[in-house]
C-alpha cells in the first residue's frame, strides 16, 4: 500500500492486527446464544387483541408487504437466495422488490451461509447498521448452528451467538420455497407484533405494564 511521496496513516500490518483483535474480542464475548425475540409468542389472546387497532394494523400491513432484505450472501445458501430473487420464484410477489445492497435501506437480514469468526464482526456491524424495526432470518443449517462445520476452529456455532434470530429455516441449502415459507413466517411475526412496544411509548388503555 505504499505510494511514493505520501506517508501512510496506517500500515496494512496495523490494520490486520486491529482486525484480528476485534475478531478475538468478539470470539471471547459471544459464547452464549442470544435468546430469540419470541416473547410475543407466549402472549395470551386477550393481550394481543387490545391494540391500537386500526392504525397499528395499517402499519403492520404496510410493513409486512415491503420487507426489504439486505443482499447478504455468505456461502452456498446465497445462490438459493438469488434463485428466489430471479425468474422462477420471484420474491417481488411479496413486495420484496430488491435485495438491498446497503443495510441502511433494509429491514430484513437473511443470513445465508456459514458465518466464520473472521466474518462475525462484519455481520454484527451490518446488523447494527440496519434501522429498527429489523428482523433476522437464519437460512440453512450453517447459520442456525454451524451445521456440519460446527466443530471447526473458525466457524461460529450458530449466528444466534452474535445476533438475535427471528426465524430459523433448516435445510442445506433450503429450497427457495422453504425460504419463502420462512419469509411468510416473518410476515406473520410482523403482523402480530406490538407496535407500541417497539416504539417504547406508554401503552394506551393500561392493558399491561412493562
Amino acid at each position, binding site marked *: 500500500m505504499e505510494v511514493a511521496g505520501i506517508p501512510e496513516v496506517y500500515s496494512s500490518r496495523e490494520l490486520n492486527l486491529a482486525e484480528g483483535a476485534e475478531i478475538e474480542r468478539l470470539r471471547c464475548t459471544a459464547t452464549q446464544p442470544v435468546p430469540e425475540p419470541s416473547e410475543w409468542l407466549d402472549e395470551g389472546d386477550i393481550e394481543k387483541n387490545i391494540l391500537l387497532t386500526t392504525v397499528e394494523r395499517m402499519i403492520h400491513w404496510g410493513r409486512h408487504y415491503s420487507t426489504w432484505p439486505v443482499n447478504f450472501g455468505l456461502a452456498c445458501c446465497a445462490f438459493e437466495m438469488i434463485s428466489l*430473487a430471479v425468474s422462477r420464484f420471484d420474491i417481488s410477489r411479496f413486495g420484496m422488490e430488491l435485495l438491498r*445492497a446497503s443495510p441502511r435501506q433494509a429491514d430484513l437480514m437473511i443470513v445465508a*451461509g456459514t458465518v466464520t469468526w473472521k466474518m462475525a464482526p462484519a455481520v454484527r456491524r451490518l446488523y447494527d447498521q440496519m434501522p429498527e424495526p429489523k428482523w433476522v432470518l437464519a437460512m440453512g443449517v450453517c447459520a442456525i448452528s454451524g451445521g*456440519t462445520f460446527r466443530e471447526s476452529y473458525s466457524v461460529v456455532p450458530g449466528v444466534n451467538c452474535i445476533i438475535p434470530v427471528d426465524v430459523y429455516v433448516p435445510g442445506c441449502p433450503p429450497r427457495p420455497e422453504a425460504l419463502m415459507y420462512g419469509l411468510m413466517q416473518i410476515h406473520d411475526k410482523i403482523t402480530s407484533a406490538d407496535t407500541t412496544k417497539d416504539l417504547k411509548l406508554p401503552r394506551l388503555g393500561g392493558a399491561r405494564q412493562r
Partner: protein
Amino acid sequence: MEATETRTEPFVINLGPHHPSTHGVFRMRVTFDGEVVVDVEPMFGYLHRGIEKLAEGRTYTQIIPLTDRLDYLASMTNNWGYVMAVEKLAGVPVPERAEYLRVIVGEMMRISSHLLATGFLINELGAFFTPLMYMYREREKILDLFDMLCGQRLTYNYMRVGGVSHDPPPEFWPAVKRFVREMPGYIDEYEGLVTTNEIVLARTKDVGVLSKELAINASASGPFLRATGVDWDLRRDDTYSIYDRFKFDIPVGTNGDVFDRYMCRIQEMRQCCRIIEQALQQIPRGEFRARLPHLVRPPAGEVYGHIEAPRGELGFYLVSDNSIAPYRFHVRPSTMINLTTLRDLTIGWKLADLIVIFGSIDVVLGEIDR
C-alpha cells in the same frame, strides 16, 4: 495519467467482505489515485471453514458431502474430482455406466456454472439482473434434473467411491435429451442479446489483458488460462475418465482480455452440449456402482488427482495411512490460484473496470477459503 501535478492523494477503499459485486465474502483493499487503481490487495478467509482439517476426522465416504460445499456452484465436479482421487489411491475400478453418468452430470454442471459466470459478469457490466434472469431460467432446468437424480438442488452428494449413488429414473433421459437439443438455441439467444452489444464490447475488449507467459507462470487454469491462448485442457491433455471417447473442441482465446474469457465460456457451453449428446448415444446398460465394502480403506500412500472443473484445475491431494480416514486432505483451489494475478490485471484501470475484471475471473469463495 499524463498530468502528474493533478494527482490526488491516494485513498484506500475496502471492497467487501460484504459487497454485492464480490461474489460472496471476498475482500479487496484497493488504493485509488482519483479513480485509478494503484494497488490491490486481495484478502480471503471470510469463509474459511476448515474443511481440510475436518476431513482428517471423517471417513472417505463422509468427506463427499464436504466436497459439495467447496465450490458450491459446481458440486458435481467436486464430487467427481474427489472420488477419482480416492479411486486412484485405492485402485477401485469404476463401471462403464457410472463413468458415462459422471460425464453427463459433470458437463451439465459445467454449463450451469458457466451460465452463472457469464450472467454475473454481465450483471456487473451494468445490465442489472436481466441477463441473470435469462441465465437462471436454463440453470433451473439443470437443477431440476439434478433434483430428479439425487434429490437436492445445490449440494448433490451424488458420486460414491466406485460409481454413483443412483441410477437415473426413466424420465431423466428424455428430459436430458430435450435439454441438450434446446440449449444451443438458448446460447444463441444470449449471444444475440449480449455478444454484439456495443456497451459490452467497449467495456470488455482489451480490458484486463493477461499475457500468456504470466498466465502459465502464475499457474492459472481453466477458461481463465485458455482465454490467453494457452491450449491446455486436462480433459484432453491429461485424459481422465472416458474423455478420450468423445469428440470435442477446446475453445482458446487470443487476447486474454475479459471478452475472451466470456467467449471461452460461451463456446465451452456449446462443446459441453456436444459431449453430452455423444455420451447419451454411447451409454451402456449395466451396473452403476461397484460392489465395495462399506468403509473404504485405501493402502498407505499418496495421490494427486485433478480434473478440469468449470473454473480450472481442481486437484485433491490425499495421503492415506491405511485407515478409514485420510491422513492429509488438501484441495488445490482453482480460483484462488487464478487470483494471483489480480494485481497485475487491475492496476491502472478504474474502479468500474476492477469490478468487471474481478467478475471475469469467476471466483467462488467456498473453494478459495475452504
